[in-house]
């Protein structure tokens, strides 16, 4: 057997092509943190990083769900609405119907997962673009919030407020919110599922080539429905975390969060065409987004809209990078 034929075309870049965006993001993160530390007094502390997680824990959970969908080559625009609906539903159930929080939480999670599964089923069964189906879901979710109430509902339930104010102390005088712990647990679970279960590998296969996955006898339909259910579940959980963070339910919470989630996944190195990316990258992406906000608030004079401008610029750069990697990933 001739060995020249069976040699991969470019061994080094091949091994590391998928990891490269991840390394770029990690480098960027370190650079941003260093620049912030040099520029601003009090920036260089672990608590600044932990605060980024405290302020963005819900986004991390939502973005993890989004990563599942994007890895299959799909997209879920409904997550922002689903987050808002979850805050609204929780506040309504607990505040206005007197349901104990322990009962409201499973109801909300079930609604999220069910809604996601329904969209996944429509996408699969009728072969409709995920963009359109989840766009419909986005309008529907936001509309349902207003059905419950057009006003913001404040949460005064004692259990809820107690959890919201809880701080988990870490050694060295550092602290995080329970939301951060939950988000990190979700991250670990997502990592194990994506890299070490048959379902996770099918998600990657689906993103690599859907018709191939079907011909290889993989359960394409079931997997598709499942990723949208995962995304729905994650947005519902993200919504619960946001409820504790805001202590209110409101139809205008999390407007545009779907786009932040997509941006976090892309900056974290997940290809929008599917099949390539890491959920750990998404966590780095969320941290980058949070750190931009932190730097701008430390800077003090810039309007918060500068956050958007920087995110926009970063997205451009990362999409261009993906294009370049995408080109070199091809075997031809």
């Amino acid at each position, binding site marked *: *057997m*001739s*060995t020249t*034929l*069976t040699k*991969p*075309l*470019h*061994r080094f870049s*091949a*091994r590391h*092509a*998928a990891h490269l965006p991840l390394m770029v993001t990690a480098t960027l993160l370190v650079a941003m943190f260093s620049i912030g530390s040099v520029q601003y007094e009090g920036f260089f502390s672990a608590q600044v990083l932990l605060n980024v997680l405290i302020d963005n824990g819900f986004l991390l959970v939502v973005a993890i769900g989004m990563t599942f969908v994007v890895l299959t080559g799909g997209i879920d625009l409904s997550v922002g609405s689903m987050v808002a609906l979850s805050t609204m539903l929780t506040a309504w159930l607990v505040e206005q119907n007197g349901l104990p929080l322990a009962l409201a939480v499973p109801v909300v999670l079930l609604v999220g997962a069910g809604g996601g599964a329904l969209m996944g089923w429509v996408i699969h069964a009728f072969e409709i673009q995920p963009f359109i189906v989840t766009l419909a879901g986005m309008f529907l979710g936001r509309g349902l919030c207003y059905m419950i109430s057009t006003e913001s509902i404040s949460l005064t339930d004692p259990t809820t407020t107690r959890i919201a104010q809880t701080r988990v102390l870490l050694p060295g005088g550092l602290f995080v919110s329970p939301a951060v712990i939950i988000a990190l647990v979700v991250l670990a679970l997502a990592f*194990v599922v994506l*890299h*070490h*279960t*048959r379902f996770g*590998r*099918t998600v*990657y*296969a689906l*993103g*690599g*080539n859907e*018709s*191939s*996955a079907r*011909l*290889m*006898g*993989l359960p394409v339909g079931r997997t598709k429905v499942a990723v949208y259910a995962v995304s729905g579940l994650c947005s519902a959980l993200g919504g619960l975390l946001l409820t504790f963070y805001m202590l209110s339910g409101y139809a205008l919470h999390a407007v545009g969060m779907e786009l932040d989630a997509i941006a976090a996944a892309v900056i974290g190195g997940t290809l929008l065409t599917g*099949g*390539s990316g890491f959920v750990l990258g998404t966590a780095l992406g969320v941290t980058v987004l949070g750190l931009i906000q932190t730097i701008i608030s430390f800077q003090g004079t810039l309007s918060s809209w500068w956050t958007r401008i920087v995110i926009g610029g970063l997205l451009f750069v990362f999409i261009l990078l993906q294009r370049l990697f995408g080109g070199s*990933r*091809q*075997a*031809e």
Partner: protein
Amino acid sequence: MAVPPTPTPTRTDRPVLEAQGIRKVFPGVLALDGVDLRLFPGEVHALMGENGAGKSTLIKVLTGVHPPDAGTVSVDGGFQRFAEPLEAQHAGISTVYQEVNLCPNLSVAENILIGREPRRLGLVHWSALHERAARLITELELDLDVRMPLGTYSLAVQQLVAIVRAVDVKAKVLILDEPTSSLDRDEVAQLFTLVRRLRDRGVAILFVTHFLDQVFDLCDRVTVLRNGRLEGEYRIDELTPVTLVHRMVGSELGILDELAETSHTGTTDGPGSGDAPFLSARGLARAGGVQPYDLDIHRGEVIGLAGLLGSGRTEAARLLFGADHADGGELRIHGKRAVLRSPRAAIAHKIAFCSENRKAEGLIGELTVRENIVLALQAARGWTKPVSRTRQDEIAARWTEVLDIRPADPEAEVRNLSGGNQQKVLLARWLLTDPELLILDEPTRGIDIGAKTEIQKLVTSLAAEGTAVLFISAELEEVLRLSHRVGVLRDHRLVATLPNDTTLTPDRILGAIATGATS
């Protein structure tokens, strides 16, 4: 090399796969009509036939993509009715398609084993997965790093990995659907080594290809289909390339004998053979399309291109029209070097190309005959100089009459015309631009005999007026009747250019197609 076991047609052992009386009808088309196929363990069996003979449909029936309308498929003697590809796989029939159906983003190991990964406590057991994949790879004497993403290997290797996956599903029958069409010679050899190894292990392999020499190189028996019917099942040593091509092409050769002898010039001294050629190609080539070829076309000369479908006829012609870019060789027009970057450039050199796919690439069904005819002329003039309506009417009326387009109504919508008349409209459009070289790719396919004769007449009279014509057709009689010289293509190579003197017969052309020899 070990002597391959040669199964005899009168084998007494039981076929592992047997299809009997398969019939499949698509709306308006009888794709398969009473086709039988038998595959025995440990044989490589070729499925041959021209395009449209029903090979793909038969494979789709065997693999559960299409259920048959009549007939039975049995595996190991038990009747099977596959509703989907997965069921065929479970019954032991695996298929490797022309395009690699794997996931380039996953590792080689995952591609081989995904869906059947070894697991421990519900989680993928990666080390066992890599070990098992590596063992399968070495068993088949391949040398790959199973941890590398599949996409980093060449297409040929991906094809091999697809076979490894197919075989690991405990395949009894392996169907290879044109696996070699995008591979080069060394890669094909590598693939064949693997196929032989699998055959020796007792797998029955059904091999579909356009390449004749590969059939004689690899296969033990052949089933030939023609027009959706079973032509026959043969041992490969009963056939020669010539007889095999005869079986595939069949009696179609006689169809046009009924036509009136129109205008076969039969001249040995083709027009302008002494003059400088209108167009001359030297070493013109395109990777994956056609190997380097030389061709001169003189004014007033009709050159026929013969060869099986997929032999590179169309590809050779497309290079002359700038529809594909040549990646080697040079082209001279009127003795001057010309680089055709696009069809527009070719049109500027007065070259016209009537494609074989008139519906998709030429005519606009919703427009009238008149509008379709003036389209190219208008495009050539530019939109700032519209062709006046009176002039349009004149042109349309003239060409409707000259080409006898029916109905003789320039305002009829083109989609309501018969295929032959549509072809004439397309011809009129190109003739209006007054081409010096007219390339006709299968101009008479799928049209009735009457229209066929008229188009043939037209080609002859155009040539008599000095137009050079490159005429591509699957019908050898037609090529012979019209051409001054006949170029024969085989496996993407122009193997011969034969002067059409009195000694040239369809059999001689077939001989050239089959063997590549020029005698």
